């Protein structure tokens, strides 16, 4: 039956047309979306430190067993206090490195004596990153003073999930996607200090 053949071939032709059009549309959409990224970097997750309240969900909600979020020390902002509110419990028994005096549950902060000015000792506080679990206890403590400690997603560990599970749990909007070329954020205070230091240098020149 020529008629039936013709019908099937017409249907087949139409079908092929639809498929080719579909494939081209898909390819076009992919090209458009892919091309649009152009110069832009891909995105990674990061915490906006100004909006972080150090609620401790970062420690528990990451898909990694030990969170990709860690405390970071901004040395420029640290006042090198003897009585560090990020290092010590609120009422430490004594001002030494005893575990019972420390805020950090894993003892991840290293206290290093740098100098002594007129009897006042000055310390540098370093985060021992392998030990840090990102609970933010030190961040909360430090926020009472200068707030030099803050939480950041460490990109050597972050799996960059499509929807970060900490971001879902984050009570503020601190988790956001940032360009991978500039994947870390500073506190606005730190930016201020850096800028004023730069201005000072300029003036001197």
């Amino acid at each position, binding site marked *: 039956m020529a008629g039936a053949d013709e019908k099937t071939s017409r249907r087949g032709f139409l079908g092929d047309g639809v*498929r080719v059009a579909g*494939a081209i549309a898909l390819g076009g959409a*992919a090209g458009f979306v892919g091309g*649009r990224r152009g110069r832009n970097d891909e995105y990674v997750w990061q915490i906006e430190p100004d909006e972080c309240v150090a609620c401790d969900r970062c420690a528990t909600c990451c898909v990694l067993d030990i969170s990709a979020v860690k405390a970071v020390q901004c040395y420029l902002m640290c006042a*090198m206090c003897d009585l560090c509110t990020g290092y010590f419990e609120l009422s430490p028994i004594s001002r030494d490195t005893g575990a019972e005096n420390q805020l950090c549950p894993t003892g991840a902060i290293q206290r290093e004596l*740098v100098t002594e000015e007129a009897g006042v000792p000055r310390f540098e506080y370093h985060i021992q990153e392998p030990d840090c679990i990102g609970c933010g206890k030190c961040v909360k403590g430090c926020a009472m003073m200068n707030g030099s400690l803050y939480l950041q997603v460490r990109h050597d560990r972050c799996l960059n999930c499509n929807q970060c599970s900490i971001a*879902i749990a984050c*009570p*503020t*909007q601190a988790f956001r996607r940032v360009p991978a070329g500039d994947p870390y954020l500073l506190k606005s205070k730190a930016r201020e200090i850096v800028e004023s230091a730069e201005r000072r240098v300029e003036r001197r020149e």
Partner: protein
Amino acid sequence: MLLFIVLAMAARAASAQDFLARPDVPGHPIPTTTFPEPRAGELEYLDVLALVAALALSSYFALARRSRRGLFLLAVASLAWFGFWREGCVCSIGSIQNVVLALFDPTYAVSLSIVAFFVFPLVFTLFFGRTFCAAVCPLGAVQELVAVRPVKVPAWLDHALGLLAYVYLGAAVLFAATGTAFVICEYDPFVAFFRLTGTVNMLVLGGSFLLVGVFVGRPYCRYFCPYGAVLRWLSRVSKWHVTIPPDECIKCRLCEDVCPYGAIREPTVEQSLAERGRGRRRLALLLLLVPILIAVGGCLGRFTAVPLSQMDPTVRLAERVGLEEAKKVEGTTDASDAFYNTGRPAMELYREAVARRQQFAYAGLWLGAWVGLVIGVKLVHLSLRRRRSEYLPDRASCISCGRCFWYCPGEHARLGLIQDT
């Protein structure tokens, strides 16, 4: 120690003004904080290779080899690779949101591997049917493995629940386009199993899906999967598709009830002239109904704008801050604390929230119209007359799992197990 607490409180109250400058220590340079670079993305490209290989293998097993065992083993392998090893991320289902966000937000750069994950299964489906669902998608694979005692879902329920996937797709597109949330990832029922960690809610949700999946084949794929909703339409026009018999259907009815996903359609009976006339009139009526449904859906959708916008964190925060400023609630939340810490004026936040609300008013309209369209198309589709002279898989709902092959005597003849007479 009291002094210490008082000092600390005072410092907090004084905030930025009383910033203690870092003392200058001669001979001691300021240490620098290290910032490790993001991981290299080679693994992502390996994933894309694995995806294409799995799609090709799956299509080969389903269409050329007609091997249920091959498909099953491939499903296990996909579950191991994309599910447990790569922890279910990135997946094609979730990639919808990245692509939509990239379309709506020009500053968002989507990774090429995610685009590949979005496009390749669609293209394969256009030519081979839903072989992606058969053995490549880890979410499909985990449900495939637990579907051991499937019962037949009544057709009306199957059709009605099937609409949910389109509604979910609409909602997911809406929330991705507005940059509110990636709901597909947020409510991915199995990712908690893949990662062996997750919130209790997600584990309970995933557990229930698997439990239901023992008796109702692939509940997520059939009734919720938004990517599946797209694949259904592409599969309808696919160039090739699995068939139940290897060559010719002898209408022996042996395959009639074997599909756990209710995708096998029996041959149609010839209708009387009166029936045909009735059917035609109904179809005409339903075609007229479609624009009405869209309009009604759109109108009703406007009312969803407020609840939809509640999903948006900015709107939620603005509402909370508004209540706190008006002293209608006591205390603060973490979110409002964070907002006050930034020192932004509340008015700015309100303005932002109002703009978001307006966005959602449009979005609600679109979502409502979409739901109307989906219902209308479904009704039209149900009243289209089709002629089938043999047992055929329904191209939209068949996921090419290959379970029916074995029940066909033609298949036994092909394999040389029985004599073809």
